[in-house]
């Protein structure tokens, strides 16, 4: 008897993980199947969202930006206003609550920019759980402030010194740690990636973003937007932004990938644009890799998008043509970072700036009666020192 193929998005997804983790993954799948339909669980989660994480987040009409660009009307979904400063908290509160219900007492997580690590450390502090965060050594330097925040919140941060010392290595190390200790530990994966059921669980917790956008835009404009867009690394804020619009075929979905120094260079992390189908980190999806399947050492100025793969549901939305994925370079993202700061008084995360950059490109080409919603996945305070350095200014955090 063959076990049914669960957690597939077209050919993508699956459960490509060591046998040691299979029972833990099955236990998680069962628990999630139960709690996602449990009114008590949903009530507790809503309470955390609304009374702790500052949801619903604003849908803000960026009037100055709209006028300046002279085209489509631009709304910003302000996930940067969430507690801890990014969309990551939506998923983390959900998973921490789930882990607690499952009787786990310890959370482990990977982090790139540090936003997911900070969110996990926050949830662990709130719920009285132990927390260990794996972070590429390179990223601990790029995002030193977030390392301090995690420690302040009571978490242990372990700098990962293998491979490229970035997000992919942090994921590998967190997986290795999970295989040594599954009994009391939940791996709080930060994006819509990894083995089933993670891509589904994380999507469901992030889907609150598009659920709110839909309600808010209908209230403000009385109609659905023409375009919704977000940046894509693993793709959690993007899938959250897309999810409740997938069935609304007139709403165009755009994911903005990190092109680094350009998709014609090796220094890129634009997976859908430059990768090919592969199997890694528990899932089948698109990956940046060489001809022998060795995973590529990707690059982006943004630690949060500096990942060689993309979530399986995005790979599927790309395959069926439902969403399109565009590359945005470091230079374009930094310009957008500065533009939104000056134009709207909103400092976006360098990750989110990739989506802002694409809005700046397409808004002027669209009619004034069109509507674009851009998700600002996080706030940019953490990036100020790095961007200053990028512009040749040496400031100390």
């Amino acid at each position, binding site marked *: 008897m063959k076990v049914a193929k669960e957690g597939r998005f077209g050919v993508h997804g*699956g459960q490509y993980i060591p046998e040691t983790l299979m029972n833990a993954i099955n236990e998680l799948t069962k628990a999630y199947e139960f709690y996602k339909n449990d009114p008590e669980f949903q009530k507790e989660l809503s309470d955390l969202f609304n009374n702790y994480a500052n949801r619903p987040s604003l849908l803000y009409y960026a009037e100055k930006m709209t006028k300046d660009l002279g085209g489509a009307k631009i709304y910003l979904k302000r996930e940067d206003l969430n507690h801890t400063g990014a969309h990551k908290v939506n998923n983390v509160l959900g998973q921490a609550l789930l882990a607690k219900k499952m009787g786990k007492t310890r959370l482990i997580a990977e982090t790139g920019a540090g936003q997911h690590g900070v969110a996990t450390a926050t949830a662990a502090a709130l719920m009285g759980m132990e927390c260990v965060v794996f972070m590429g050594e390179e990223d601990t330097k790029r995002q030193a402030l977030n390392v301090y925040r995690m420690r302040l919140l009571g978490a242990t941060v372990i700098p990962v010194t293998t491979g490229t010392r970035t997000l992919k290595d942090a994921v590998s190390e967190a997986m290795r740690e999970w295989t040594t200790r599954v009994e009391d530990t939940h791996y709080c994966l930060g994006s819509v990636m990894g083995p089933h059921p993670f891509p589904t669980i994380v999507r469901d917790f992030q889907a609150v973003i598009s659920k709110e956008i839909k309600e808010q835009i209908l209230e403000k404009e009385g109609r659905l937007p023409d375009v919704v867009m977000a940046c894509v690394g693993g793709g959690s804020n993007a899938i959250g932004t897309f999810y409740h619009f997938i069935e609304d075929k007139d709403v165009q979905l755009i994911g903005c990938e990190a092109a680094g120094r350009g998709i014609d260079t090796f220094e890129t992390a634009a997976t859908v644009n430059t990768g090919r*189908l592969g*199997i890694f980190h528990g899932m089948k999806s698109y990956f940046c890799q060489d001809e*022998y399947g060795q*995973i590529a050492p990707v690059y982006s100025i943004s630690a949060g998008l500096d990942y060689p793969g993309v979530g399986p549901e995005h790979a599927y939305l790309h395959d069926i043509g439902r969403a399109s994925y565009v590359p945005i370079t470091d230079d374009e993202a930094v310009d957008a970072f500065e533009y939104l700061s000056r134009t709207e008084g909103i400092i976006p995360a360098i990750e989110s700036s990739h989506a802002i950059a694409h809005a700046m490109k397409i808004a002027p080409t669209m009619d004034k009666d069109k509507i674009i919603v851009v998700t600002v996945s996080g706030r940019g305070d953490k990036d100020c020192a790095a961007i200053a350095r990028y512009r040749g200014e040496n400031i100390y955090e």
Partner: protein
Amino acid sequence: MSKIKEAFKNGKAFIPFITCGDPDIETTYNVVLEAVKNGADLIELGIPFSDPTAEGPVIQGANIRALAGGVTTDKVFELVKRLRKEVTIPLVFMTYANVVFSYGSDKFIKTCSELGIDGLIIPDIPYEEKEEFEPYCEKYDVDLISMVAPTSEDRVTMIAKEAKGFIYVVSSMGVTGVRSSFANDISSVTAKIREVTDVPCAIGFGISNPEQAANMSKIADGVIVGSAIIKILAEHGKDAPSYVGSFVKEMKEAII
């Protein structure tokens, strides 16, 4: 019938693991010949992968050294072609799913068969995903080796029933690497396997000395040793073959 069974005819089987191309292909060639000469019954040849998520630091290091030295899947195939002129014991590959998938699963497994590779161990292919490669393994008569872990519990029977070649019993939680203690209940795992199949069981992960090997061989048909051998390679580099040879001899004698 699987040729792998022959490895378990000569008493308890000793199975060394060697990462191909660490530090270079020529050394791997010589290490394999030495291991065979000194009593290895089956050899697990690792094809390096950039991100080996089931490995501890020692084997991660071997993967990095091998890739830095320019090893590719095709170069490993060339190595096996040369080895097969001298070596008749069963050989299996150990690598990650993406190495096989990206080469083209059909082409990779067909090549294995043509070169005389008897089995494939892929740690990121659990029972639920074996459809990914099993149809090709059946087509070309290469055994897809199943792994069983201390956490497998009620999954052991399901896995063992469909197992081919041998069953890789993971000794303890975590990744590969030398360790001093093992899961308490490995013997209950092998006993469960015995109830449903006569496919041989070999225990691996963390076994590094003759005493541990002797203990493990009492509850299984074979013992797999990786990190301890990789450490010898890391220490002696190109001079490693004779050191690996004497280590294999000592281990094989301990388990007979």
